[in-house]
């Protein structure tokens, strides 16, 4: 039974004893649930203009005077339920983080494998691009790309992928270089397997482990970068407000004391990224044989 094997594994044993791993994964599961079931958890669809009533605008959270039990975290200027906006916004933030991570990982791994396996000029070109890119902060590159191409979920995905592939390419190239020296790859070569098959069947499975950690943490980084871009007005469009854009919209009324429209979405980002980082830290300690 694979399940009993998992339950008695060292990984699960350490997981049970690590408070940060349990908190981190619980937060991640909560967000996964919120993202999938979000629309069924709230009565109001914040994108449906017919469901909004201006009479409900700027209601404070329920524990404050004037709070309305229909809107636990208050409402914004259009009478939009902040809690519902957060659930819908989290979907966009998490979607962008996940998709951009998968795209970065795929492209980066591919380029890293090619660079490491074939070496030579391809290797130099890919790695020099990576070097140049790494000497600039990701947020600045993303900001620059977005300023050139304009807003949109697809464009955010492209910008994040353009920033994100480098770390995979570097890691995979490094491990590929050490793997191809090993005997099993030499043996596969002697056996006359084509390069593409050696890369896919022999090298790839052996360079994947460190990517799990990078990928986990990168989702959090991407959520933060996307939020920053949207906050600056060069991220997602107004029709698809992510958590970052919700904060931006809330910022405009912060000085009138209407803090709940911006503070709660920010809190949601914090919890999401904190959960990812907690779990990512645990994974790093578990998957890094040097630390054991």
């Amino acid at each position, binding site marked *: 039974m694979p399940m009993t094997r998992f339950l008695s594994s060292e990984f699960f044993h350490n997981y049970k004893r690590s408070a940060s791993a349990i908190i981190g994964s619980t937060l991640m599961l909560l967000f996964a649930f919120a993202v999938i079931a979000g629309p069924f958890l709230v009565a109001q669809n914040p994108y449906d203009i017919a469901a909004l009533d201006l009479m409900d605008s700027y209601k404070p959270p329920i524990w404050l005077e004037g709070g309305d039990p229909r809107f636990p975290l208050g409402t914004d200027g259009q009478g939009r339920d902040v809690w519902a906006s957060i659930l819908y916004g989290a979907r966009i933030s998490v979607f962008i983080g996940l998709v951009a991570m998968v795209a970065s990982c795929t492209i980066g791994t591919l380029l890293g494998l090619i660079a490491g396996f074939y070496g030579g000029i391809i290797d130099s070109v890919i790695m020099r691009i990576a070097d140049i890119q790494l000497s*600039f*902060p990701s*947020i*600045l590159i993303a900001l620059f790309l977005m300023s050139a*191409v304009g807003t949109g979920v697809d464009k955010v995905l492209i910008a994040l992928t353009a920033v994100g592939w480098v770390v995979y390419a570097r890691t995979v190239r490094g491990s590929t270089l050490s793997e191809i020296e090993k005997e099993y790859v030499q043996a596969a070569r002697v056996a006359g397997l084509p390069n593409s098959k050696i890369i896919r069947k022999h090298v790839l499975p052996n360079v994947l482990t460190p990517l799990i950690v990078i990928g986990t943490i990168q989702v959090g980084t991407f959520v933060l970068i996307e939020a*920053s871009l949207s906050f600056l007005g060069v991220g997602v469009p107004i029709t698809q407000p992510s958590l970052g854009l919700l904060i931006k919209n809330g910022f405009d009324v*912060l000085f009138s004391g209407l803090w709940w429209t911006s503070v709660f979405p920010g809190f949601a980002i*914090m919890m999401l990224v904190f959960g*990812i980082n907690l779990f990512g830290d645990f994974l790093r300690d578990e998957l890094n044989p040097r630390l054991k």
Partner: protein
Amino acid sequence: MLGYLLKRLIQMTLVLWVVSVIVFMMMSFTGDPVFMVVPIDATDAEIAQARRLLGLDQSILVQYWKFLTNLLQGDFGYSYVFRQPAMTLILERMPATVEMVLVAMVLAIVVAIPLGVYSGANHNGRMSRTIMAGSLLGISLPGFWVGMVLIYVFAVSWGIFPSSGRGDTAEFLGLRISLLTWDGWHHIILPAVTLSLGTMAILLRMTRAGMMEVGRQDFMKFARAKGATRRDVLYKHGLKNALIPVVTIFGLQLGDLIAFATITETIFSWPGMGKLLIDSIYRADRPVIVVYLMLVALIFVVINFLVDIVYTLIDPRITLK
């Protein structure tokens, strides 16, 4: 050493050249800046004339060549919006950004290094775990959101700190400096704290990891055995050796601070070059964006170079080739 310097210089020039090509290409393929310059009711002839004046009617290669030669002659073009040299605009605002970044950096170091040393030396203690959880939270926070919460609490609710602007400045060597006036300090605290949190958390974690690594080594045992005080063991023997990875991160963090300053400046209406960049992006003020990016690229390349030099000063075992 001389050979190394020369090699690095060539590399740095190459990087800057690549950046100039990329920046120029991206800017050229997006939007038409002519409409930023001409009035809304401009005739076709006027638009064509403006295009000619801006040199936008020529081919991309000619435009790039002109851009590059102008760049090398110190002519960085005029802002479409301000009608002033883009370089002047940015240089005017640079002191504001630099001082905010410096205050943030100092704040980060002053808090992060002692806490990092402490939690590295007592890495299983309750206090150390709390510090680590706090630092992880620091990494997970959206920086701009922290700034907003600070504004709400300290400026809107309590009114202790101003929410925006730079306050009074004093002239020093021809530069306007906030740090020379009380009002300037009053204004800089919230933005600098906001900016420093992320860097603080990362420096703390690096210092802690370095201290834990170093703590296992024999020279630390020896220092303890010969009776050096705990303080000396940790700071003179431990920290010095733990600093090498921290210095690498330090360089990268300085770059990150400059980048995140754009966001912090936007929130606090801090009149620095980062806010100018964001404003220029909104207005499609191409020359300013290009100059900003080229200047920042230059700064980053120089920082990376300095970091490599600093390595050799901290660790004589490293030689530059």
